[in-house]
């Protein structure tokens, strides 16, 4: 555990140094991201002037009280939602300028999502749930099969491949959720309170899994309420009333 943390720390400094010193473009850069909704005569702001840079290999935690805009920020980064104002570039591409098709393509190639309530498709088995992102990526049959089998193996859920989500425990479901998110080898993994619905021991397991993925090179951004879960990451961003703040 300690080792991992140290590793993470090292990585953090490394990556920061890298991006600063070598001028390599960060994975994500947002400038002045604002999200607001019209309400009556005025506007309700969910996010205000978010400037953020995330480098490849980071494990970032977004924290803050309910309604601070954590999930919204995550969704905007994950391209599930759009910002009202501001600029967002991912891998040096201006996401806010891309059309829907191109944005979907970018998303499909590079991102994986993990949800608090797992969000598996109820009518599909574990195997088929894992297969779905590959189908959308148009991975060919044989390759797809081997990828699914590899992943089942890696997450040690081979025995559950023919079960439906309703036949699994919460922890097992989330394991499948993580497996599905990483099966296509995304560069960026977004996790919205991935352990929020789990017992502490199950939560532990998932968090360890995430840090393992991080050490293997996947960039991760997670949203959480828990300081303990935050400690798995190497940088924390605090949000309050839509602003980035130094401390809560």
């Amino acid at each position: 555990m300690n080792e991992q943390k140290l590793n993470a720390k090292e990585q953090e400094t490394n990556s920061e140094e890298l991006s600063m010193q070598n001028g390599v473009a960060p994975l994500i850069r947002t400038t002045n991201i604002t999200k607001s909704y019209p309400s009556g005569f005025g506007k309700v702001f969910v996010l205000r002037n978010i400037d953020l840079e995330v480098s490849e290999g980071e494990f970032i935690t977004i924290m803050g009280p309910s309604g601070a805009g954590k999930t919204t920020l995550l969704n905007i980064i994950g391209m599930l939602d759009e910002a009202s104002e501001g600029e967002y570039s991912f891998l040096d591409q201006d996401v806010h300028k891309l059309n829907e098709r191109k944005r979907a393509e970018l998303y499909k190639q590079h991102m994986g999502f993990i949800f608090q309530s797992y969000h598996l498709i109820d009518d599909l088995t574990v195997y088929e749930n894992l297969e779905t992102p590959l189908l959308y990526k148009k991975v060919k049959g044989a390759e797809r099969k081997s990828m699914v089998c590899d992943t089942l193996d890696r997450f040690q859920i081979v025995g559950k491949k023919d079960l439906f989500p309703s036949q699994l425990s919460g922890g097992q479901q989330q394991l499948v959720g993580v497996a599905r998110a990483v099966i296509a080898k995304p560069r960026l993994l977004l996790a919205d309170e991935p352990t929020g619905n789990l017992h502490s021991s199950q939560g532990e397991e998932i968090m360890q899994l995430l840090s393992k993925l991080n050490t293997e090179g996947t960039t991760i951004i997670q949203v959480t309420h828990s300081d303990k879960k935050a400690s798995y990451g190497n940088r924390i961003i605090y949000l309050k009333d839509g602003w980035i703040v130094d401390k809560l």
Partner: protein
Amino acid sequence: MFRNYLKVALRNMVRHKGYSFINVAGLAIGMTCCILILLWVQDELSYDRFHDNAGQLHRVAFSADAERFRGEYVPGPLAAYLKDEYPEIVNSTVFCKHSRMKLSVEGNGFFCAGSFVDPSFFEMFTFPFAQGDPKRALSEPLSVVMTRDLAERMFGRADVVGKAVTIEGAADLNVTGVLESLPHNSHIQFDFLIPYSIAPPGMKRWDIKSLTAYVLLDKNSSHEQVSEKISGVLNEHNPTWENYLFLQPLKQIHLYALGGGGRITYVVIFSILAFIILLVACINFMNLSTVRSEKRLKEIGIRMAVGSSRIQLIKQFLSESIFISSVALVVAIVLVELLISPVNVLLAKQLHLDYSGGIILGLIGIAMLTGIIAGSYPAFLLSSFRPVALLGRRFLAIPLPGYRQRKASAGMSRFSMRRVLVVAQFAISIFFIVCVIVIFNQLDYIGSKDMGLDPEFVVVLRTQGELARRSAALKNELLQNPNILSAAAVANGLESWNSSAGVEWSGMQPDQIFDMGLNWVDYDFLKTFGIEMAEGRFFSEDIPTDKSDAFVVNQAAVKAMGMNDPVGQRITVPLGDRIEGRIIGVVQDFHTESFHTQIRPYGLRVTEGGGLLYIKAKSDDLPGALRHIEATVKKFVPDDPCEYSFLEDRLGALYSSEQRMGTLLQYSSLLAIIISCLGLFGLAAYSAERRTKEIGIRKVLGASVSGLFRLLTKEFILLVVLANLLAWPIAYWAMNQWLQNFAYRVGIGWETFIIAGASALLIALFTVSFQAVKAALTNPVETLRYE
């Protein structure tokens, strides 16, 4: 990918059996109806297309009276004349449509439909021979070609070439060919054919129109060009007729009546009907899919989150609905196979579903079309949501701004498209109900309206040959039986107005030209039909001049001539050798044709033998009367079969297409209502389910069961009321148009609309109440369990 979609669709169907059942049942019923109607339409459109030369064959027709009248009967020699004079006309033949002749073999007589044709008949039309040589079959004068059916009726077998039959007890004919059974979809129907060369002289005169003529054009001529060329031919021979010839393509004869209209109207109406019923079923599907969508929103969100594009989602939902419609198609095909025989009885057809390439393709087409129509709306609606709205924990509370993005929030329940669809569905059902009520009202009216003559218990006996020669004796013999009240010989059938001709009288103005129908009747005419005199007297046996110099006319004729004191006036009818006479009496108007037309001028002459004998039987022993009639006929002509019919049936047949349309609409409206109710049932189930929590809370707060019932049904009742307001004016307009076809018609009362509306409302209420009661009676503890 597709397999993945299919799997989800299948598992979804299995998991939600109720919805799946409603979905598949609705679509299957709609498709069944659609397939049956399309089979009928296909059959109607297939008429006369089986001839190899179908495209070049035409019937010769003429227009008269400045295009006001179009007819098909032309003089016999015309066919040969046209072929000789016009090089574009490669071949021609005569044909006579309604001629009944007697063929006998070894003393057994058979009345059958025979026609005189030119030997080239078989070169023009494609009627395959079972036996015999088409080229030489009718080249000898005393030869006959018969159908397989007639051969089997007469001889008990089909290989009868070389046998002899006697025609009209006068001449022996040699059977030179046997035809395969005629296709039912041929407008040319006959039992046997004989050469035109042996036709009676009357059929070979230029001044009598007694036959129809068909011509075969060469491949490079259009019928418009040839029509123009031959237009004046009839006038050259008979300038007074003012008849102008034209050609009618063979393929149009069955569908298009010469005078306009025809069966094509029904083909169009029923094609539209098929489409509407399918549409109602599709609307159902759309409705249920959109209400089910809330359950699917999560899946859609997940799919978007793991990388599905909008197009892929649309593809998924479309393939899902096409899958469901394919399942429905299979059910529909089974239903069609089960229903086809009763439907054939209803339509008087021999439809069947043959699984040939075209039909299979058509069926698949229906399934695809249904799937796409039914699935497109849910597919586009569902795929337009934004994933964050579907997955976010608080999505119900977040008002999403949206250009393309739609609210996936509580707004779904207020979503108006669904209500529009329910209203549309019910409007269609109500429209059908109104139509059915009006049509049956009109048919009722026809059945009950005083015709001016009493057709009850009147038996119609066709007399020809020996029977016609001895008709006076036959009549006497018949009247011996107490069950026979009266009998009258009549020349023309009483269900038609024919042998019309102009009338001339002294003091006639040039603008008073009109045609009068003529009939020849005997002295017992009034008594047999219960017709009353309006003025003067009827023909009498005691006054000999009545036979040669007397007319009885109807009131319409008097009105047309504008006479104040008609009795005693002389009129002349220029028919044949000019018929002249004094009007001795005026009969009250009676109907001689269908209620589609006004009673027209009609004149009667007296005769003792007509082709038809109308026999009024006593009402209490009709079977006895019929036995007596049969026995008497057998006594006069032992060889011939006794064939009779009832005047009431013959009059009823005038409205057979209306009757058929009424019955069809009745079934259609029933189906539309069933489908609509299936949809409403699903919607109500959904609504009750969605409001479970609300109902629980209301109950806890003290709402009564009846209050909750009202709450749950109010919404749907309003929709049905709205549907009524939409359907009424359209139905009124449509039925008003239809009633214009009748000169004698019912009005459309407001009760019609009230009945239609109320029944739709009741049915809807009944459908919805099942769910509403269930929901209202549920224990709130259960519904609030999860909160």
